């Protein structure tokens, strides 16, 4: 009974997290992306707490705390700064239009289901139902990075991918060892900082944060 609830909750949570990933595909304004990412991170934190509670793992509360601070408080703030810095920057015409993007993303999730079959079979954790969704989220993040033109969007896509990996980890293993988790957070933070520095550089040198004009270097 307990396990059933647990697994339903986690699956539900993961699906919601995945859905937030989808919003990146049909919204166009950068602000929406920030919000979506923020809420996704909130959900992720919640999921950590749930798993911590049902899985009797105190460590996860701690991790959830870090995650909240990093991905719900710090990163969205910086993202907000960025988007206010460049008003009027919208994903007006991505390489792949919204409709197609959604279809492709759907297919990617299906693919994820197909590919992660063995994982689900192997694991006996109640959370295993969410694994395909996690991998799906990774794919969607990747897809966003590939098809969206604004540097900012790509950053968000990268962060979403990170969330997907975190989700995978927590669902599959109730979280990787704490110290590693911390190291990962640190890396994510630093990586993000570097990226946003570059967004400024790009904007200063190219008068826009469109990545597709970075095509000087070829052959």
């Amino acid at each position, binding site marked *: 009974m307990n396990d059933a609830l647990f697994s339903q909750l986690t699956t539900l949570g993961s699906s919601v997290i995945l859905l937030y990933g989808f919003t990146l595909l049909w919204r166009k304004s950068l602000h929406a992306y920030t919000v979506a990412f923020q809420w996704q991170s909130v959900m992720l934190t919640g999921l950590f707490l749930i798993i911590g509670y049902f899985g009797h793992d105190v460590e996860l509360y701690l991790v959830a705390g870090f995650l909240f601070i990093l991905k719900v408080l710090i990163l969205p703030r910086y993202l907000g700064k960025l988007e206010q810095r460049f008003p009027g920057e919208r994903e007006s015409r991505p*390489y792949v239009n919204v409709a197609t993007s959604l279809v492709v993303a759907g297919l990617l999730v299906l*693919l994820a289901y*197909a*590919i992660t*079959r*063995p994982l689900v079979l192997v694991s006996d954790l109640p959370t295993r139902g969410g694994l395909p969704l996690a991998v799906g989220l990774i*794919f969607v993040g*990747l*897809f966003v*990075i*590939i*098809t969206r*033109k604004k540097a900012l969007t790509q950053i968000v896509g990268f962060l979403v991918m990170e969330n997907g990996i975190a989700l995978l980890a927590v669902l599959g293993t109730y979280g990787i060892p704490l110290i590693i988790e911390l190291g990962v957070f640190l890396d994510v933070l630093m990586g993000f900082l570097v990226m946003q520095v570059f967004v400024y550089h790009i904007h200063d040198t190219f008068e826009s944060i469109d*990545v*597709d004009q*970075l*095509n*000087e*270097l*070829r*052959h």
Partner: protein
Amino acid sequence: MTIVLFLVMIAAYGFGAFVALLGGRGPIGRWLVAAGAVIGAGAGCAFGAVVIISGQPFTLSIPELLPIAGGLALRLDPLGAFFLVVIGVGAIPAAIYGAGYTKAYENGRASLRLLGVMFNLFLLAMSLVTLADNVLTFLLMWEGMSLTSYFLVITESSEDGTLRAGNWYAAMTHAGLALLLAAFVLLMNGGAGAFADLRSSAGTLSPEARNLIFVLALLGFGSKAGIVPLHVWLPRAHPAAPSHVSALMSGVMIKLGVYGLLRVALDLLGGGPSWWGALVLGLGVASALLGVLYALMEHDLKRLLAYHSVENIGIIFIGLGAGLIFHSSHLMTLAALGFIGGLYHTINHASFKGLLFLGAGSVLHATGTRNMEEMGGLIKRMPWTALFFLVGSAAISALPPLNGFASEWLVFQSLLGGLNLPAPEIALTIPLAVGMLALTSGLAAACFVKAFGISFLAIPRSHEAENAHESPLSMRVGMMILALACVALGLAPFAVVPVLGGVLAGLGGLPDTRPVFTLDLSVHAPAGFAQISPTWIALGLLILLVLVPLVMRFMRVNRKLRVGDTWGCGRIGQTPRMEYTATSFAEPLRRVFAELYRPTKELSIDFHPESKYFVKSIKYSSRITPLFDRVLYDPLLRLVQRISRQVRRIQAGSLHLYLMYVAVILILLLIAARWF
């Protein structure tokens, strides 16, 4: 004894290179550099001679070096020793000649330092190729040889075309190395690659593997030897290189291709099916014929000689091919005859082609041009060079009693032995080979009448030729040594043939043919098949050359001689423009073989403005693109370029595209991992 000579050889070359590295300039420097090479080559010669005579191989192994594949293993058996001697024969005169020839570089036209260092290292590498006794050692020395010779080719890098020539050479030689690497590694098949092991294990390989190895080796060594269609680098590289280097490369280095082929096909693989021999024979015929035919159309003296190298390598390969054919059907004596013919022609070509290149070098040195159309009348201005060049020309045209004839005779005889072959389909190819070989030597004679006649005889065709000067002593000495070698090798086949018999004895189960070819002043083909004695012929000619004038004097024939104008059909005052040019000399043959040459002509007549009945100027130009450039290399290069143009699209500059690659490969591999 041998070890001493070996060390002396190494040390001398090292010394030469070192002096050059310190910047051997000025007469002293140049002579020291040359001295290193001369002493080294001399020691090498002696070293080889000792091994041949004693028949005792010299071995030396340094396991500390190249430990990953059996260490550095050196072994000099008679076969290697013979080629070491060939190197010496070519190197000593070339080095002496070079001492004078390189004076021209003192003005900084080329780096004397690089030239000197590479020259000595080149000789060292070549010598060590003949000593290598395991795969890695061999490849190391082989590539060392190629690399050093490459630098020698691009010595005059400031001249235009030199670097292009260098590129061609690098490309062909590296392709060759790749093929050899494949061949040898297949031969090793996982082992350490000591030649002794290969010899014993070669029998256990599957026939397919053996055939593959043979073909790879044939092409690999062929690209160095310059057989058609891998010859394209010779006519490019030889003219570019300094003449004494061309002499070495053409006279000696390409012979190591022959060495390699013998080593692998006969020694390591121990012979094979008869089609191996037929293939070698076919390539030889093709090379000989195409080589001489393109030589005929060349008016660049050194390119002409380069094409003749192709021709002569062809003749050598005909000998080897015949040998392999007979070997495959166990006619050992005949086989030995074929190989002997090949080896004999090898050393002969080393001498006369070296001589001719040195001669061409002197002409270039004197007139500053390689174009025969701007020469002429040199026989009066540089008599010595002319004489030596004449000797070389006669020798390469296989005229008795010089050395070219002796070896071609042996090759002929081995081919005539073809009637003893059991397999008719092979036997019937032999007459064709005979015919083509004959045609080749006839054309060669024609070509050298042109080469010598147009460049040395008659009236100078240019100002440079008008006041050309004889080249310095060192260069003349260099040529003289080789000229003497040509005569000596021509007069003494009775001495050379048994030596070669000894060299070949035991390779791939060949018998010791020394008893078969007896030691009177003549050469026998086996079983008293045929017999000649160039020595007697030479004697006869000599006697007659003395006797005829004596008799004439005795008969009181009129001995008056008046020098007058050439009779010009009543026209007074003959100018060079009336002379027959090299082009016109070759015209009949060009028409005969027009099918092959496919010359492109363009004729532009510039009329006088007033009336078109008055012609201002007539410009006629005709070009010949060699067959294989046309059908093989140009398309190949175009193909590579096309592919690369496509491949470069990958790096299109779009980050999204790049990320796409990652995603696609990820998904592909995931699918593969999940379901395949």
